[in-house]
């Protein structure tokens, strides 16, 4: 193989590797996109349980009597970033840190009356229902925003699983 060919092959390889890096190995999009939010919470809560963090559970904080999570979930229009506080038995607090859902429907996800519906035990997987709740693990969706509501509930279920892992590790 002559020198010219080698240069071309090397160039090709470099281009492909760079492209792969751009596409697959860029710093976590979530970390970058929501840096300000994450930094703010990192400043307040210093004790992180990093081994329980992943692409969706971005942060896992030990809050002594409870565990705090920053979790990301795909809504109808965009990603939703949620702060969750789980105690041993139930969901203590849900706070929407970022949302860009549709006006007059999905954006109601931040309303107190919806967030209050989420203060439930998490021993059973939560489930979204429409208009009428029949079981304790059911959450009535925001009218006209089922996908958004489901995104929040899925995020909670994800954190509940992580919480179970944390509890079993401690035991």
């Amino acid at each position, binding site marked *: 193989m002559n020198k*010219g*060919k080698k240069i*071309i092959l090397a*160039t*090709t390889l470099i*281009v*492909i590797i760079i*492209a792969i890096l751009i*596409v697959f190995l860029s710093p976590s999009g979530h970390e970058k996109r929501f840096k300000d939010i994450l930094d703010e919470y990192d400043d307040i809560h210093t004790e992180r349980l990093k081994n329980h963090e992943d692409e969706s559970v971005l942060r896992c904080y030990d809050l002594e009597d409870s565990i705090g999570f920053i979790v990301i979930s795909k809504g109808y229009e965009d990603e939703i970033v949620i702060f969750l506080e789980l105690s041993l038995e139930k969901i203590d607090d849900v706070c929407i840190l970022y949302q860009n859902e549709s006006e007059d*429907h999905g954006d*109601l996800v931040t*309303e107190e*009356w*919806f967030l209050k519906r989420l203060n439930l035990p998490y021993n059973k997987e939560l489930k979204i229902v*429409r*208009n*009428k*709740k029949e079981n304790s693990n059911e959450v*009535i969706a*925001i*009218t*006209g*925003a089922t996908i958004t509501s489901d995104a929040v509930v899925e995020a909670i279920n994800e954190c509940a699983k992580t919480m179970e892992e944390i509890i079993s590790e401690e035991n």
Partner: protein
Amino acid sequence: MKKIKWIIIVVIMIAVLFSACSKDADLIYEGELKFTGLDKEINIAYDDIYAMESIKATVKSITSDGEERVNEVEGVLLETLLSLHGLSQKDFVSIRLIAGDGYAMDVPVEIIKEKDIILAYKFDDENLEEKKMPLRVAINDVRSMYYVANLAEIQFSNGKAEDASVKKVILLETAYLNLDTESYTYYDSEDSAILPVDLLDTYLESEVEKVYMLANDGYDKIESFDVLKEGYIKITGKDAPLFTGKDLPVGMNVKCLMILQTGNISFASVESAKGVIKNRIVGEKEGVAFDKLMDMIGLVGDYYIMTANDGYSVEVSRDSLSQAVIYVMEDGACAVKFNETYPKNTDIKYLLSIELGDGANSITGENTGIADAQTETESDSVKWTITFDGLSDGSFDMTSDRAQRKLELVELHTERMKNDEILPEDWKGYRLLDVLEFLHVDDFDSVVITAVDGYEVELVKNQLDEETILAVEKNGKALIDDDNLVQLIQNTEFATTWVKGVAKITVN
């Protein structure tokens, strides 16, 4: 040379790599658009539709907020697709557009016959966003609810249109009393709902395929029974009555439902109609004008039978409806009230239904209990006297007998405003100018009209015209109240110069 070849290869590779990320890739969509309801189901691949010769058009739509939107769209005409199979959209009386998420919308026959239905894949030179792919319907000059995105199926129906004239109206607010309710969470409130299927089962004798719904903001749609039976009608709280569903997309909701019609039965919400029909006050009751409500619903006839929830019924004439209101009682059910000239038994609480009658048992006003047909010639037998003062030879008593013999009875139609409502009325009487001429009054400055209760109105000479009459009949009925046997009427917008119970006219 070889070097150049390699460079070209590298450039192509880079181009391929980056083109994969490009948003402007050619339209491709896996799957087929289904045409159902035909003799044989037709499936057309979306990619085949994209490959067909397209049309471009400017379309205007009106959103649910009343906002007008104009878009440049590109796509294929439904008519073109149908013509490939020897069909035309004009062959059908109903076309139902169904989205992938279950949203469905019936296109009414007026649109089918008159407008192009475009299956668009570009809006304003942009490909549809992912969740609206593969096709979105566009029709010029219609509400945006017909712009069904993520189009998956088109259901055709060529069944003959039924005779949809209304024969009976059922008032929803009273009808609810006979149905079970369920709790229903709507946004942040806990409301009550009924099942439409219960409503139809209770009040209809036969099964229905489709229902027509009209909201009080003018939004209307045709819905299939299959959709209706999956739904709820929320009967309390915001937007009630609200047609909605457990698993229906929110776009299929109908807020402030006013009419739900199927076949010859129309369910009407008086509460919703309040926002559309101007209110009328009868006695102490304020509600919707009975006659206007019937006109809006399309229940038109000479006689109406009103039936209460307990089965009690009363028949009244069409004319009497202009003297009545339908109102919502404190407990939420409906009632009807007629003015004081009608017998008490025409006032019905818990009014459930209204249907056309034959007049056999019709009750009329004035507490006579006599059918309207028997009152036609009453004005001839009513006796009255008006004293004319200020004449050159003193005073003169104009009597009903003398007026009948010497003066021409004329007709006058008036449309006066009352409580922001136009009240059309037809009068018969004698021109005041004819009476003055009969009394040889050649010149005068004014006349003072005095009523039996002492009320006076002065009219100067130029206020008296050919349409100033001493009326003895109103809407085909004689004025028979002792305190109003003759009424001075002018064809004016407001009744400020009108005088009831004319007793004396003084010429100045």
